[in-house]
């Protein structure tokens, strides 16, 4: 579904990605783990066109997207939950969700999807008239994910959904991510520092180091991999 082939992305003179190659097939949860500054988020940003790669190809369902502007990529069905949540702080929860469905015209289905995300996160239904900025961190993350679901993406990109959340909330959110994948076969690309949890729900995983993918394997094998254990799982 998504094929990233040897992309090099730069921030000014700094080469953040030094030839990243990876592949995601339909219906999978694929996770990208690695330490700080390995280039995980940059890979995601390159996919959604916010920091496009200087060289290399990205194909989404056969369409080359590495030269497209971010809104075109979004309209193809790639939706991103940015790192640090980035909800609309002065809009209400309902309006935030409505913005998620910005590109959609099928009102009836949108309404059904709102009900679906309120089922996933009942707390959001309670808060629907509250403005986004007044939510707690966990609720904001839930809102960010819900907003992305409202876009009905074919590929959902999640950037560090566990960032700054309590372990309990993190577990809840990961369960939901798993459920989203189960419910609608939405392909999920999960960038995460919390390798332990990420590998638990993912089918496959990639390990990144210094702008390169170093290990690619199934999630089960990665959890057992001695190197990964030592470096990222803290065992």
């Amino acid at each position, binding site marked *: 579904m998504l094929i990233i082939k040897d992309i090099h992305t730069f921030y000014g003179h700094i080469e953040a990605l030094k030839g990243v190659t990876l592949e995601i097939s339909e219906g999978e949860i694929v996770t990208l783990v690695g330490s700080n500054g390995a280039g995980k988020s940059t890979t995601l940003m390159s996919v959604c066109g*916010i920091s496009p790669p200087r060289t290399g190809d990205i194909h989404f369902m056969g369409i080359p997207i590495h030269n497209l502007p971010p*809104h075109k990529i979004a309209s193809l069905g790639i*939706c991103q939950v*940015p790192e640090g949540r980035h909800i*609309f702080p002065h809009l209400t929860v309902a309006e935030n969700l409505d913005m998620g469905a*910005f590109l959609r015209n099928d009102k009836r289905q949108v309404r059904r999807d*709102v009900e679906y995300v309120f089922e996933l996160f009942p707390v959001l239904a309670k808060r629907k*008239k509250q403005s986004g900025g007044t939510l707690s961190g966990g609720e904001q993350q839930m809102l960010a994910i819900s907003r*992305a679901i409202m*876009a009905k993406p074919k590929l959902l990109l999640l950037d560090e959904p566990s960032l700054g959340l309590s372990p309990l909330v993190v577990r809840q959110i990961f369960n939901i991510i798993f459920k989203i994948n189960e419910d609608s076969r939405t392909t999920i690309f999960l960038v995460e520092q919390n390798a332990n949890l990420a590998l638990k729900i993912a089918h496959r995983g990639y390990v990144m180091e210094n702008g390169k993918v170093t290990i690619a394997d199934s999630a089960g094998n990665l959890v057992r991999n001695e190197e990964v254990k030592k470096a990222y799982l803290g065992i």
Partner: protein
Amino acid sequence: MRKFAEIRKSLYVALWFIFLTFPIMVIRINPLEKTVEWRWMNMALVGIGTFFLSFLWRYLISKKEEGSKRAEEKQNEKISKLRRLIENRKIIAGSVVAGALLAAVFPFVVSLYQTNIMTTALIYVMLGLGLNIVVGLAGLLDLGYVAFYAVGAYAYALLNYHFGLNFWMVLPVGAALGALFGILLGFPVLRLRGDYLAIVTLGFGEIIRLILENWNEFSFGPSGISNISRPPLFGIELSVQNATVYMYYIMIFLCLVTIFIVKRLQDSRIGRAWVALREDEVACQAMGIDRTKTKLTAFALGATWAGMGGVVFAAKTTFVNPASFTIWESIIILCIVVLGGMGSVIGVITGAFIIILLPEYLRVFSEFRMLMFGIILVVMMVFRPGGIISGVRRTYKFEGKNF
């Protein structure tokens, strides 16, 4: 106990002010007679005055804090009385009818002078509503808005001077030129936001003014262009009195059109995109909103109203020169938007009337105009940070069994 502490604090403030103002308010040296006059009376006045003002300030702030606490306790209380008043349908209908009647008979009840002032205020309503798109909705701080106003005014002045085109022909041209210049300004500032954007737009406004001031062959320099013809009514030339009244009605009409279109824009898809852009750019892109297009339309549509406002201004005063388009105009228009309430149409209209009409009717205070602006803005930021009438967004309602 708390009261006592407040009084003591106010007392300190008063003493500090007495100390600060001592050299200018108390001592007066007469260099001719070489005497020093001590005006102790002034010191007492400064002390008492600041003591009371400081006490009043503290009292109002503590009252406001209590109020917000209470509002948190009771969710329903959150909706202020003013907003409930605005949302009441009967009151809306009544005030709209009353406003329409008043607007219709206004020029026949009051003097020509008053009508003229009102026309000016209406021009500012239009400018405020235009800037409201850029600043209030899209959140792009534009300090060079007056440049588009100048573009419109000079478009009419020059086209009228060289080709004898009349008001109605130039009105759309002015609007289109405004939009064009809006896009011209928009392109280089696409990547800027906040203070950087403010500085660039400020520079843009000054560039336009300086060009008009110095390019004599094109714009006739600082002496400007006079004898611009007033708008004709079906080919009839009107007397000055009638033309003023006619101008007033044109402005009423244009304001209504502006209000209608701005309202529609606000609720439209592009309006939602503007608001989203103001809130968070990254999320905006993730949602599939075209950032470039959204920003440029905000600049272009905002500038369109300024262009039209400029054409009307030139037709009303029959004279334009660069001195009418200084940075102060931009600031005043921005004040209208901020004071009235960013993103709120009624707020901006109220703001325009307050800022333009108050100085006209309070001629006594005309010297202190800027001081009054400052005081009003500071007081407002403390007590009504969202503006006099803060934006009431139409919220999207999802219908379904869960709600």
